Structure formats: structure tokens, C-alpha cells
């Protein structure tokens, strides 16, 4: 496993996709991140992250037919690719390795 670097937003986007399943498209992903993490993210940032993730072949996408409730515009759906899933695990491992033995550290206790 090579070094994987994911920004927080990229990580959140990757995590939102399997959770949404069939409904994983831009607006839902943005909303999922906002509702779960409480972070306000812009649609442009979400798409920027999705573009980077596509280039690294962590996700793949396809377009569906235009819809009236979208001003006659198409939807682009996303699916997590194996490399993306691996990157997520790696990222989680990195974080957990960093956390090891710190759960009851007095300096961190102060922030609970």
C-alpha cells in the first residue's frame, strides 16, 4: 500500500458515496456531508473534490437523463471504486495509528 493523501473533504465525499448508494449524486453528497458533519460546504468544492477523486480513479461516474426539477439538467451519479475504498481504509488506519495510546492522555482529556 503506497502513501495515500486525502483531504478531509475528499474523505467525507468518499464516505458519503457508499452511504447514499443509488442516490449518490452532487446535491445528495453535499447535503449528506452538511447534515452529518455539520460543515457548510459549497457545491463547487464538492465537485472540485469529485474531479480530483475521479482523476485518481477512486470513484467513477455516469450521467442520467435531464429532469424538470433540476431546470432540465442531467444528474451525475458516483460509485466508489476499489482503490477509493482502499484509500479510505488507509486514511482511517493513518488516523488511528496517530491516535494510538492517546485516548487518556491528560492534555487531550482537557479537550473532551
Amino acid at each position, binding site marked *: 500500500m503506497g502513501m495515500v493523501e486525502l483531504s478531509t473533504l475528499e474523505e467525507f465525499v468518499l464516505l458519503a458515496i457508499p452511504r447514499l448508494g443509488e442516490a449518490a*449524486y*452532487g*446535491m445528495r453528497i*453535499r*447535503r449528506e456531508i452538511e447534515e452529518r458533519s455539520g460543515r*457548510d*460546504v*459549497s*457545491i*463547487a*468544492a464538492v*465537485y*472540485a473534490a*469529485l*474531479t480530483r477523486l475521479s482523476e485518481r480513479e477512486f470513484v467513477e461516474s455516469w*450521467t442520467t437523463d*435531464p*429532469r424538470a*426539477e*433540476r*431546470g432540465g*439538467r*442531467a*444528474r*451525475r451519479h458516483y460509485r466508489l471504486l476499489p482503490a477509493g475504498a482502499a484509500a479510505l481504509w488507509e486514511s482511517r488506519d493513518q488516523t488511528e495509528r496517530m491516535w494510538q495510546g492517546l485516548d487518556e492522555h491528560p492534555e487531550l482529556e482537557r479537550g473532551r
Partner: protein
Amino acid sequence: MSARPPRLWERAMGLLLPAADRVEALGDLHEEFLERLATHGPRAARRWYRRQVASSLRPALARFRAGFAGSGAVGDLRLALRGLRRHPVRAVVLPAILALGLGSAATVFTLTDQVLLRGLPYAEGDRLHSVWNVYPGWRGDEVLSDYWDQVTVSWPEFEDIRDRSTTLEASAAYGFIDGVLTDPGDPTNVSVGMASAGLFPLLGTRPFLGRFFAPGEVGSEASAVAVLTHEFWVSRLGGDSGAVGRTIRLQGRALEVIGVLPPGFRLRGQSPFGKVGRQDLWVPAGLVGGVDQRGNRSFEVLARPRGEIATGDVEAELARLVWPGEGADGRRMRLASRFDEEVASVRRPMEVLLGSSLLLLLVVAANLALVRIGDASSRRGEWATRRALGAGSGHLLRLVTMESAVAGLIGTLGGMLVASGLVSVLVALAPADLLLGVDVRPDGRTLLFLLGCGPGIALVTGRFGAPGRSRRSTAASSRTVAFGGDRGTRAVLVTQVALSMVLLCGAALFLRSFLELSAVSPGFDPEGVRVVRVVPGSEAVAVDPAGFHRAIEDRVAAIPGVRSATVTTISPLGRGLGSSSFEIASRPTPEGEKSPEALRRYVGADFFDVLGVPVLEGRPFTGADGPDDRPVAVISQALADAWWPSTPPIGDAVIRDGVAYEIVGIVGDVVRESLRAEPEPTFYLPIAQVPARAVDLVVRADAWTEARSSALRAILRDADPGMAIPPIETMDARLRVAASADRFRSTVAALFAVAAGLLVALGLFGVALQAAQRRRREVGVRVALGASTRQVTRSLIRAQLGLALVGVAIGGAVVLVLGRSFGGLLYGIPSHDPVALAAAGAVLLGIAVAATGLPARRAARADPKSVLSEG
């Protein structure tokens, strides 16, 4: 409430998104917007959308920065900036030329845009029409023929239109009078508008304070109420927020203030009898009478026709309403687009301004191209070095383009500065009626205009500074420069000279016209003459106006330093219409023919002496021509020529109102309103024999001091405490105003011409300098072989003088063709005036000789030894 995201924000969002995701991302936002609309309501949904746009700005910027860095453009920009810093021509001269040209064009654009293009400042202003009476019978009349299809409307006629028309959506009447305000403050002259109840609603004006006139307050039973303009409310009532309900006094009559108009409200009268552009306050129509008689036509009517009805149908209906069965002498009604009427007088001058500024902009563009060509040839070494280091033609072109873009941007910003300065200068210079009362200042649209033109011009002309595609072509162009430049350079040079020729001719024509107009004798001696309007405020004075005037004349003439004083109903270049018909005693007008008409002035006994009007035959009036003496008249030269071509007028008589006034003298012609007009036939009657109430007091003094002016005011105040004393005018000022439109035109044209001349000099100088440089060796050889400096100089400038001559000829031809379109603005000279054309051509050729001769002489004087040894 529309169920879609705010359009503008959606468009902005589209700009911020990368093309690959644009459609889907906008769809996402649309979808979520609709959801939020249902759950949170429209305001929250729109706010959310706006926040999305704002927070997408950062990712977009990051993307832009990344793309820019990757393309190598940053490096180019850095190089371009360095190049600009090192080369004053590129950093200073280019942007400066651009800023001047753009600034003047933007100035004229701003004037035209705000005065002409924006339409009237009223609700649905483009659908407003003036309604006029048309009297075909006036067409043959000497005095009234100008007004025959623009006759005002009487109140009863207006009521017919307002109450019975089915083709009009709304209509309103208004008129103007002068009044004297006696409270608050000292008596002051005010301009009073009279309005029907529908006027302000028709214009879409809302009260700033209070309310406007109700229908019941207008007409023969008009209420004593007034609406103040915002400006008047501020200046006279100190902007008192409790002004509504206060009482003011107009002509001694108490009026209750019921409202204040919004700031900047203006309504310009369009009647040729009184173009009033500014009012102080408005009263209900009918308050000062004038609404009962069908023949008293003192109102202008504004109307908005129903959308789908043709103008002809409206006119037909109005004619039926106003002239039922009276169409015999062809009287009818006419509808005229209000906008067209308002801009009619300024359209042509504005078009000339616009044309000149566009020409100047083209001269600027040509000049920029020339500077860039010169610059490019001097940079051949630099290009060669860059090529040797691996730069391709594309890269060099990109570098030059970047330089142009930077210069263009600096020039554009400079242009905005120049425009802000120039707009205030032009506004100060412009005759009041040119700007139609619009408060012109540069705004966002000026900036947009500049951003639209500036970078574009810089980039297009920048192409001329690009290196040739190959070494061969650069070598070829260096050869052809020797013969006045390559084909491109020559074309640009000729174009520039031709365009400048047009501008110079325009300036020469306007200047000649202005000089001709200034040389027009007003028919009197204006020096040291002052005029003040005397309108008695107290009714008591009206009992013996002649005595009142004589007393003032005598007392004013007694002020130390004052030479003489007199009164007249209409002073030269003053306001007022005094034309009337008369009969000639020896030749009564046959039945059925029209009586002769002429301007009539009632004047004091010393009138001709005070104004210095020459008495050509007979005698002027004297103090002995009193009310009980034999009625006498003096006529002007023009009247004598028109009606007594073969018989002597003296001894004959003019008959007016049944009284025969024996003609005792003939005097020189005196201007009436315009210096441009032909002298108007005039007869003078002694004011003592035909008393008039309101007069102009005309005073001549050796020199005017404040003490004399205040003595004059004191005498007037003492004679009638109820009288408003207007400012004392000088005749010189009146003459200046009369020529102001022409002075403005020639000043602006001269400014454009000077700029064009300088640019041409710069362009020719640059090209000549290169040519001389290029031919150094040839010159060296010729001088070494014994050619004189003179011969060499001549051969060096010949090529460019030839080009300048071609340009002058083309420009002259253009003026001959275009001239017809602005011929009407000229006075006393035709648009093909040979003197002006020759002068413009001579100036341009002079510039060409000087600009090309200097570098040529220097080259010819160079020491051949050092030139030839350069290798």
C-alpha cells in the same frame, strides 16, 4: 413567486463552475433550491443560493490560479511587466496616448449616453406624447410660421381631451408663469408651474413629502395650494420636514404647501414660445386664471396613447373633440413623441461630438499601431536573442500580447481619470440647453465603455508590434522602411493623416463659423450696458406706469458715474415675444389679405442714445413725445426695406389698434434673440404713449462698481417695495450666452483637432526617425560623394510627405461628402469653405514637414566617416 433560483445568481454560479461540471452542479443547486423553497420558504431558499454562490468563489479562484500558473502566462506577465518597466515608450507613451483617446471618447459617450440614450426620466417615458394644435393658416406668416404646428392648448380644449378621449390612456396639462414670492424672505422672482391633477401621476412621480393636487383642486375653482420642488424646499424652507401645511405667499396671495416633489424632478416646456427648463413651485392650473376661455391657449398637453392605437387615429379623434365641424381652415391636432421633441435640438450637436470623438479614437488607434511598429523594428535584436534561446514565434507573440494587455489596462484606468476630468470641463463649458438639465457625471456605464474599448484597441494595435514570422520577413521589412515604411505602415500612416484631416477641417470650420458669428454686429454698443427686469409688485404702480418708469429713469441716471438710463419692453437678446400686425397708412391692406407683421418695442425717449443704436434718418424719440402729444413711431432699417422699398417711410404712419403713429425716424437693426437670425423688421413706439407694465431697465455707465449696482437696487426697492429685484445682467454676458453653443462647438472641435495634430506629429516623427536610422549608410555614402545636406534631407522626407499629401486629400474628400450633415451648425460659411479646408490641409502638411524634417536633417548632418565605419 417564481419557483426557480434567482436568475442573476444562477448565471454567476455558472461562471464560477468548471465547464465539465457546470450542467450537473447547476442542476444539483436547482433541485436543492426547490426543496428548500418548500421547507424553508422563498427568502431562506434564495439566501441559501446566494451563500452557495459566495462560497464557490474560493474553489473557483484556486482553480483559476492553478490553470494560470500552468499555462506559463504568469511568466509572460512577469516578462511583460519587466519589459514595460525598462521601455518608457511601452510603459508611458502607449498608455498615455490610449488614456487620452479613450478618455475623450468616454467623455463624449457619457454625455451622449446620459442625455440622449437613456430616455426621459418619467414612467413609460417612451410612450409620452405632446399634443399640439395645428394651425395651417399660420404657415405663410412671417413671425408665426415657425410655430404653426406647435400651438399650445386652452384649458377647455384640454378638458374635452381629458374627459372624452377614448384613445388616450391618460393626459395632463401644464403651463408656466413667472411670479413673485413675497413670503418667506424678500420678494424673489420664481418660475411657477401650473399643473392639472393628472400631471404628476402621468409622469409616474411620487411626492417626496405630502401629496399632489386632487382633481377637485384644479380648474376654475382652483384651491390656494402649492407643491414645491425639492430644490426650492431646501433653499427657501431649509428642507423643513414640517413644511407641509405651511403658508407661502405668491404675488401677495397665501398658498398652503401640500407637498414636495422628489429631488431632480424636471419638466421642460416644449412650446417655442417658452422653453422653460426649471421650476421653483407648482400650483393648480386655474389658480391664476386662464382656464375659462377656449381661445386662451396657455397650456401644453402631455398624453399617453393606448398601446394598440395608431397615432393617426388618436390625432383624428382629438381633432374631432377639439375642432368639431371647424376643420374649414384645416385646424387639427398633432401628437409628437416627447422624447424626440426633447432631444431634437441636441441630437445633431451630440452626433457631431460623438463623430469627432470616434475619429479621434481611430487616430489614437492608428498612432498606437505606428508606435508599436516602430517599437518592433527596434526590438529585432531582442527577438533574435529570444529566438536563439529557444522562444518560438508563438511565445514571442504571447509576450507582445501580454505587454499590450498591461498597457491597455493602464490606459483604460487612465482613460477613466481623463474622462472624469473632461466631463466636468465639458459640462462647465456646455451651453445650458445642450444637456437638457441632466446632471452628467461618469458612472458605471462609462467604465463599461472604457473596458469594452481600451483593452480591445490595445490588443489589436499590439499585433503591429509582433515580430515577423521568420527572419526573412523581418529583413524584408527593414528594407522597405527605407521608402516610407512597408505597406502596412504606409496604410496606417495615410489613414491617420486622413482622419486627422477630417478633425482639423471640423475644427477650422467651427472656428471660422464662430468668428463670423462673433463679428456679427448686434446693432448696438454693449459695453458698459446693464439690464434689469422691472416688474412692479404693487397694483398701485399700475395706475401711472409711464410716470413710474420716468421717475426710475431719472433717478438712476442721476447715480454718479451712470451716463444714461431708459426702459423698453424687450431689450436686445432678452426674453419676450412682441410681434404684432400693423397697417400702413398710405397703403391699407386690401380686404382678405394679411396685414404686415413686425416686432414691436415700446421704448423710453433715450433708448437709441443709451444703447448706441444709430439714427439713420429723421429723428429719435424725445421727451416731447408724451402721452398727450402726436403719436409717433421709429422704424428699423429692415422694416423700411421690407415695406417702403421705393417711397420714403418718413411722413407715412403705422396704424396699430386704430391709432396712426407717424414715422419720424429710421434706426439701425438691433438683434432680438439670436445672433444667427436675420435682422427682424421692428417698429418702436414711445412707451409714454403706449404704457406697459413690465419693462427692462437699460443703464449705461462708464464703469460698474458694486456701489453703483447697490444704488440701482436701492432706487428700485424704494420705488416699489413689493417688487422682486432680479440679478442685474450685463449685455456682454448676454452676447456671450447668445454665442455659447457656437463657442462650445469650436472649443471642443479645437481640442480634438489639437490632440489629432499632436498624434499625427508623433506618428510621422516616429516613422521618419526609423527611416532615417535605416538609411544611415546610404546617407553616409551620398554625403561622402558630395551631396548637400539639403538634397539628402529632401530625399529623406519626400516619401512621407507624399503619404501625408495622400492622407490630406482623402480627408478633404471625406469632409466634402460629410460636410452636408453638419452644415446647419455653421454660420456664415458653407461646409466646403475653401479657407477652412486649405488651412487644415496646410497645418497638417506643416506638421508633416516639421515631424519628418527633423530626423531627416539630423541624419543628413551625421558625419559620414563615423556612420560608414559602424560596420
